[in-house]
């Protein structure tokens, strides 16, 4: 199971990083989403992988699974979900405004926009 989880995290991270480096908003957002999935699984695994044990520490329980990473991962999921929603809206706004979906700061592109804005004024 360790191998499965570890390689899952690895593949998700690699795919996410590859997509992030595409520098167009759509792949980059998908890439960050994959990265957050990877980190969520990673956080979950940080409390050690235990199957079928209760998340409660008791004197008589022979085995237990760490409840804290589960709480952490819930928080992380909520936050990353919210952040992804925000970035989708902002990226869409930028794309509709400029007709360009490049993520990087293209000075030339920015200058063109600026000139257009000045002309409109």
């Amino acid at each position: 199971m360790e191998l499965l989880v570890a390689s899952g995290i690895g593949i998700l991270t690699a795919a996410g990083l590859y997509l992030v480096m595409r520098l167009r908003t759509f792949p980059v957002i998908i890439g960050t989403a994959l990265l957050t999935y990877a980190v969520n699984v990673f956080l979950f695994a940080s409390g050690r992988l235990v199957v079928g044990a209760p998340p409660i520490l008791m004197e008589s329980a022979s085995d237990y699974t760490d409840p804290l990473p589960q709480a952490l991962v819930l928080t992380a999921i909520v936050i990353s979900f919210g952040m992804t929603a925000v970035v989708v809206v902002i990226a869409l706004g930028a794309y509709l405004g400029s007709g360009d979906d490049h993520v990087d700061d293209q000075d030339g592109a920015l200058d063109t926009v600026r000139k257009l804005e000045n002309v409109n004024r």
Partner: protein
Amino acid sequence: MSHWTVVPVVLPAMLAAFLLLATRHHLSMQRILSVAGSVALWAVALGLFLRASSGEIDLYQLGDWQAPFGIVLVADRLSTLMLLLTATLAFFVLLHAIGTGWDGRGRHFHALFHFQIMGITGAFLTGDLFNLFVFFEVLLIASYGLMIHSGGTRRTQAGTQYVLYNLLGSTLFLFALGTIYAETGTLNMADLAERVTQIDLSQSAGIRVAAVLLVIVFAIKAAIAPVHFWLPSSYAEAPGPVAALFAIMTKVGAYSIIRIYTLVFPPDLEVTSGLLDVWLLPLALVGLTVGMIGVLGASRLDRLVAFSVIGSMGMLTVAVALFTTQGITAGLYYIVHSTFATAALFLIVDLVVRHRHGAGAELQAVRPVPGAPILAAMFFAAAIAMTGLPPLSGFVGKLLILDASFDSPLVVWTWAVILSTSLVAVVGFARAGSTVFWKAAQGGEAAEARADDPTTQQDNVESKPSSHPETQNALPLVAIGGLIGLIVLHTIFAGPVNRTLAATAEQLFAPETYIATVLTTDGKEIHHKAKHGEANLVSQEGRASDDGHEGEAEAGEGH
């Protein structure tokens, strides 16, 4: 334990929610409440600061649960100093935003502003690493809203980049936290500090990775080279007051570095030796160089100031990277100074941009800026402070940093880089100032002569009030004047300030009190013993179902 410690987090949160729910359609009401809230926050921060300045460490256990199981807020000298700095900056920035009407150009400025303050104060107060992550996210998500406040294509584009960069930073933070938790089994900073000392040297790989990941995250926030690329366009495109508020946001990164790398991974800790103590100082020098060269090369006024932020963060990191009492003292002095100086510069640039006709922030000589003498004087003063020329606090800060770096092995490099970049920055700012304020006057006259229109003068007078009705408002000037006044005070009272900061640094390098306060203060007791009969019952059932699950899982893997 007094409840005052949690007020700097709760007050802005409640206020922001109230502004959002009750006064969303009443701008003037929002303004009144917002300013009142920030004054109240300032008073609380001052109270906490004065209480912490006796050397006492205030602990607040949320829900009364004992650390390390519960989350704690810790108000020591450093935290309360940063709180006071935040509250002071927020007040002046708010004045500027109201005076220039920025808050009315989009929706929910005040609510977002206070949510951001909440995130910042929380990050300064928390004693738990995961909680630090949560507060980082709070301040970031509010900053996304503020960054694209009032919209515009360029701003949204820069905003996309900013959000994505920080999203990646947050992911990295989570990876670091996961690694730390896997290695130590705790995320409470004080508890962590004890546990990392027990890690065996031969098994230190995991914790070393975590320490490096964490510092990368904080370096992204603090815009230290080589992860500073997000800063120039984000800060330059953000609305003026927002960029000024962001001056404290980079300091959150610096604060986190100071906190974590004096408390959890102190410089004399063996398992993480050879990481930060070797790499941070050269990177800080690179950041300083990049920033100041950027100042010289910038073609726009707002980008120039943004690059000076990178430069000043580099300078600050040089001081921090020494990891000595003297170095941290100098760094703290520089934190206070550079927060006020960058905020003042961003606010001045905002005024300049709105008063220049058409040219925006471009470094070109156009028609003179109305109210130029006052603005020019303020720009001059803030630029002197920023570049570290005498007599303002930038000079004192730089002197302290130079002095502190004497014992460092890289002293020659440090001195050479700091002094030469200062020159570069002076040239950059002088060029910008003279283009905008001096050449503007000549260029303006020439333009008027060319236009050959006797009524130009009259036109000018008439067009000003109509196109910029806010021009009459003195509030922005008061805000900038206040910030510059604080810089002057920071210079005049450098002696007493330094003694306080030295005490702060000493407290940081003797973390035993902090750790003891957090870990030994009693809270609610945590029972993990169930009643015997019940426990047996539960465990039997649990075991039965365990076996079943395990069987299933194995079968699943078999497939």
